[in-house]
């Protein structure tokens, strides 16, 4: 069942899926509805009856469905939702920023960030495998930038339908609402039990890390493409400084890393894909011995002291006597992030790695015309 309410820049997803279903190319019910809150609640209801579901939204639409996000996660329903990232207004914008989905960090959903058409398609397929796994049973947001990624036309290999069905067999839910075999979902939990449910949810999130890597491995084996699962590391083995980023910025950053590598700099890149679950132990392993990390991200926690990824990475690496961590706030409200800006980010992180004193931990990239 697909139920979604159109909002820029998610709209083409809704239009195409409605067309696929209308033409009979996609076997699904399509439910038109009056807003995002209802879209999420109808998706929760459908998923409760044991069917596979999909929805998509952006920005204010995502925040409008927030109550439902908790319902979906607390009910442990394996809903897959595309979040086409758009910054939260005001000031009004229709353009990208990860601040919309980052603001939903604590709803209990998994979040994966993608940066190309191929990665989005492959991740959506994997997302059902991961969410529906009985060790997990958690809804998942597949997030990617509005316009620059969502409206980017590029080559995408469409996998064979039969092969996808072998990778992702029909959904057989362990629990569902069924009049023949009644059960109750989302009921009241007394104080003695409520926190226990949250603990189990968190344990499933931890278990999801393994499931994400398994889904990645089997996908790579079957389809010959790899996106990294929890994260993708480039040139980190001997890196003194590493740039860590999410989504399509990782692609442009890779270009910069390759260039600076050729110039002799010991620079690496981590493309963080899974923000929830946050791969804390994997990052400790990968970055514990690096001298400096520059976190480049499309969100900021106003009143905090950096972006969400910066905060989380500092927490994850706390107590290790690990790298100096610098924050770079970029690419919100549709702001472009250029290779030369990323090169400046890399050079500053390299300076920090060489022990140079750097004033201020967090920098906003506000220059340029676009």
């Amino acid at each position, binding site marked *: 069942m697909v139920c979604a309410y159109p909002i*820029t820049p998610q709209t083409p997803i809704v239009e195409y899926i409605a067309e696929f279903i209308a033409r009979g190319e996609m076997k699904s019910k399509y439910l038109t509805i009056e807003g995002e809150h209802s879209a999420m609640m109808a998706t929760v209801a459908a998923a409760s009856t044991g069917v596979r579901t999909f929805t998509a939204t952006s920005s204010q639409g995502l925040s409008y469905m927030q109550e439902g996000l908790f319902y979906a996660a607390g009910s442990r329903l394996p809903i897959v939702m595309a979040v086409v990232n758009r910054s939260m207004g005001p000031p009004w914008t*229709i*353009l990208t920023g990860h601040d919309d989905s980052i603001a939903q960090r604590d709803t209990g959903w998994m979040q994966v960030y993608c*940066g190309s058409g191929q990665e989005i398609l492959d991740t959506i397929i994997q997302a059902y495998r991961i969410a529906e796994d009985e060790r997990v049973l958690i809804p998942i947001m597949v997030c990617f930038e509005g*316009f*620059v*990624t969502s*409206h*980017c*036309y*590029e*080559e995408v290999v469409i996998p064979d339908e039969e092969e996808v069905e072998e990778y992702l067999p029909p959904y057989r839910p362990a629990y569902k609402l069924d009049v023949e075999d009644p059960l109750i979902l989302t009921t009241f939990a007394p104080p003695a039990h409520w926190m226990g449910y949250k603990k189990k949810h968190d344990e499933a999130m931890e278990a999801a890390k393994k499931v994400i890597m398994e889904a990645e491995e089997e996908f790579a084996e079957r389809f010959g493409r790899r996106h990294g699962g929890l994260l993708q590391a480039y040139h980190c083995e001997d890196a003194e400084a590493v740039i860590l980023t999410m989504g*399509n*910025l990782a*692609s*442009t950053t*890779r*270009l910069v890393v*390759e260039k600076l590598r050729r110039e002799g700099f010991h620079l690496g890149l981590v493309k963080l894909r899974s923000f929830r679950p946050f791969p804390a132990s994997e990052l400790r392993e990968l970055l514990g011995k690096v001298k400096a990390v520059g976190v480049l991200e499309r969100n900021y926690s106003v009143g905090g002291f950096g972006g969400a990824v910066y905060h989380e990475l500092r927490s994850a690496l706390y107590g290790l006597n690990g790298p100096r961590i610098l924050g770079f706030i970029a690419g919100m409200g*549709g702001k*472009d*992030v*250029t*290779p030369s800006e990323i090169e400046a980010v890399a050079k500053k992180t390299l300076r920090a790695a060489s022990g140079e004193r750097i004033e201020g931990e967090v920098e906003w990239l506000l220059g340029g*015309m*676009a």
Partner: protein
Amino acid sequence: MKMTEIRIHCRGGRGGVTAARILGLAAVREGKHALAFPSFTVERRGAPIMAFVRISEEEILDRSFIYNPDYVLIFDPGLLNHPSVRVGVREETFFLVNASSREQAASLGVKKLAFVNASAIAHQVLGVPIVNTAMCGAFAAASKLLSFEALEKAIREFLPSKIAGKNVEAAFRAYQEVKFIGENG
């Protein structure tokens, strides 16, 4: 091969974004890699918009906007004096403009320049002021980056079949009628 970067300047609703996608698809059909994406600022009809195309023999990693274009395509003569069309251009940047006359095109005052009366072609062939396929045809001829066959294939793949034929015709007319000015001519 070096990466080719194309920047399209158009007005909202006049097909600039579709042109970027058609050019990208034509390049892919010739076995190259391509990215085509829009730069929306304010989403309204008639507002100046930009669309970007990158074409390369190798995987394209740069996903930022295009600041130093190899080609600038101006779809609307009213944008000839818009400051955005000159941002980041170099002496060797090639301009292809939709203009009603050589004089109008030459007013741009750049070294490498070609023009085509895409508005007239669109009006005559399509009956609507959508110049995108004509501009794609002119681009294929002026740049020699794409064969007309690949472009035709892309137009037929991309546009609904009932309008594809006329659009191929518009593209072909522009392919034949594009004229170089100055250094190239």
